[in-house]
């Protein structure tokens, strides 16, 4: 598993423990006292590190190559899932996965950004950066959800919509904007989870939800810290400062009223235990679906509208 830069001190301690163990075995010496001491130190350090993560460290966790991806979470969470493909217009975009599934007695449509875990997968998935076709596939599936009265679950995990030549030609702006408008009009509940990176309009394009949850180490921002740094701070290396300034972590997004709750992750980040992450998400879905079940369609639509209507801070 890839170690993140800020995990280095911890790794060093673990290495030392490993060395001592080996020494103890090979030399048949009892080093258990020393080992225990370092282990305690490591545990203390571990708690310290992960309790005091700064925003740019959280960004690293959110982008960890082993971070649980939409497709895997979907298969861990739902009882049945059938992936559906295509926008019925131009292409099937691998950067968006979607389909129909069941969870207990609930029938749902699921849509998510899809990243890969290695270079090959990432190239195929375009690093989770959808083309317009991806947003249009998502829309088609969500419209189907609306038709068949199925709640919509979305998983957000993208650096942003793909800034490519053909993406612009085919109307990246239009595809995202249309999703924003259409999602606002649905009368089935929409529950969204930012599971990794929530990058800009490309994230929001499947995120106009009744309930939005941030995974503990997920981030959500109007522009990537790097982008913000290079534009506002005139120095791409100031990404950590930008990450801090923009307020992009789960607690901050909740505090701003944009997210409704935080999904806990195992210590050290979701990449250490996908099943644990899936379990927590499943719990949130089940509980919310239960609540929405008793609500009228008009109420569901109104609640979503009100939620976004009140977003903004200004004087008047």
């Amino acid at each position, binding site marked *: 598993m890839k170690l993140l830069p800020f995990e280095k001190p911890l790794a060093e301690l673990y290495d030392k423990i490993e060395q001592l163990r080996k020494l103890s075995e090979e030399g048949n010496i009892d080093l258990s006292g020393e080992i225990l001491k370092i282990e305690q130190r490591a545990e203390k350090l571990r708690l310290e590190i992960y309790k005091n993560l700064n925003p740019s460290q959280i960004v690293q966790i959110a982008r960890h190559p082993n971070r649980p991806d939409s497709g895997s979470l979907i298969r861990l969470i739902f009882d049945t899932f059938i992936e559906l493909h295509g926008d019925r217009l131009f292409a099937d975009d691998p950067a968006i996965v979607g389909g129909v599934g069941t969870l207990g007695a609930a029938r749902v449509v699921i849509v998510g950004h899809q990243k890969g875990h290695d270079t090959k997968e990432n190239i195929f998935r375009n690093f989770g950066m959808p083309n317009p076709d991806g947003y249009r596939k998502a829309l088609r599936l969500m419209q189907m959800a609306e038709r068949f009265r199925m709640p919509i679950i979305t998983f957000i995990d993208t650096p942003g919509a793909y800034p490519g030549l053909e993406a612009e030609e085919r*109307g990246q*702006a239009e595809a995202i*904007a249309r999703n924003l408008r259409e999602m606002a009009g649905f009368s089935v509940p929409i529950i969204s989870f930012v599971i990794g990176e929530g990058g800009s309009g490309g994230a929001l394009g499947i995120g106009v939800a009744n309930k939005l949850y941030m995974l503990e180490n997920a981030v959500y921002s*109007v*522009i990537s810290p790097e982008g913000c740094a290079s534009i*506002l701070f005139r120095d791409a290396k100031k990404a950590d400062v930008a990450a801090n300034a923009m307020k992009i972590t789960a607690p901050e997004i909740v505090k701003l009223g944009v997210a409704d709750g935080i999904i806990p992750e195992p210590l050290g980040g979701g990449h250490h235990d996908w099943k644990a992450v899936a379990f927590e998400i499943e719990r949130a879905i089940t509980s919310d679906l239960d609540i929405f079940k008793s609500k009228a369609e008009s109420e569901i639509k109104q609640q979503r509208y009100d939620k976004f209507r009140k977003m*903004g*801070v*200004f004087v*008047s």
Partner: protein
Amino acid sequence: MSIIDWFAKKEKNISSAERLNIPGDVWVKCTSCSEILFQKDLDSHCKVCSKCGFHFRISPAERIRYIFDHESFVEYDSNVGPVDFLGFFDTESYSDRIRKAQQKFDRNDAIVSGVGSIGSVPVNASIMDFFYMGGSMGSVVGEKITRTIERSIDDLKPVVVFTSSGGARMQEGIMSLMQMAKTSAALERLAEKRVPYISVLCDPTTGGTSASFAILGDVNIAEPGALISFAGPRVIEQTIRQKLPKGFQRAEFLLKHGMVDMVVDRRQLRETLQTLLQALNPHGVLAK
């Protein structure tokens, strides 16, 4: 996002027209063809170069003068103003940026909203101002666009929005992104009420603005040569590592690619809007 262009060009000429070194400011040089134009003539041509047709960027006040019926425009929501609620500081604090811009433009933010008439057709309208912090969309722009739409949801007048924006206002963080959803949601309600919405996309309309209300017009009209993009040209060039073709992401390009309905010369815009609004509006005079 593509507000990058605004910042990059900031030091250069982003004023409406290059002033010449002649006392009295009566002559102006065309940014495109370098023709020397008499300021007053230029104004009588809606700030379009009479030689090459270049469309100068204009202020909301100018746009109101060129498009709306004389003295018909009444401003609304001018009191809505921005707040530095994140305590954002980059090379300068957001508070300072706001204060300076407000002083310079004598206006709270990068948008003017109001009610007016175009060829006797009453509309609710918003007009963005690229000169004011690159027309960036923060809470105020989002709120004022939404209120304009909501007025139309109530009084069933068509909505006309003139966009000109570099995208989201990063100093308001995630809240600026949410304005995309807020405005688009309001447009969904407007559509349910069967009220027409015409978006006039002016140079430039990029980033989050392009990917929300700007592109969602029942009819999208672009001004000639306007840059309209989600990702800015520079970002795309970095991504694909090659030069973009000439005219890429310009109004005429979007017309060809099916994203805008028309590219209309500013001098004909008023008439086009009038005819269109009359034909579209199920709540208008023709419909009665």
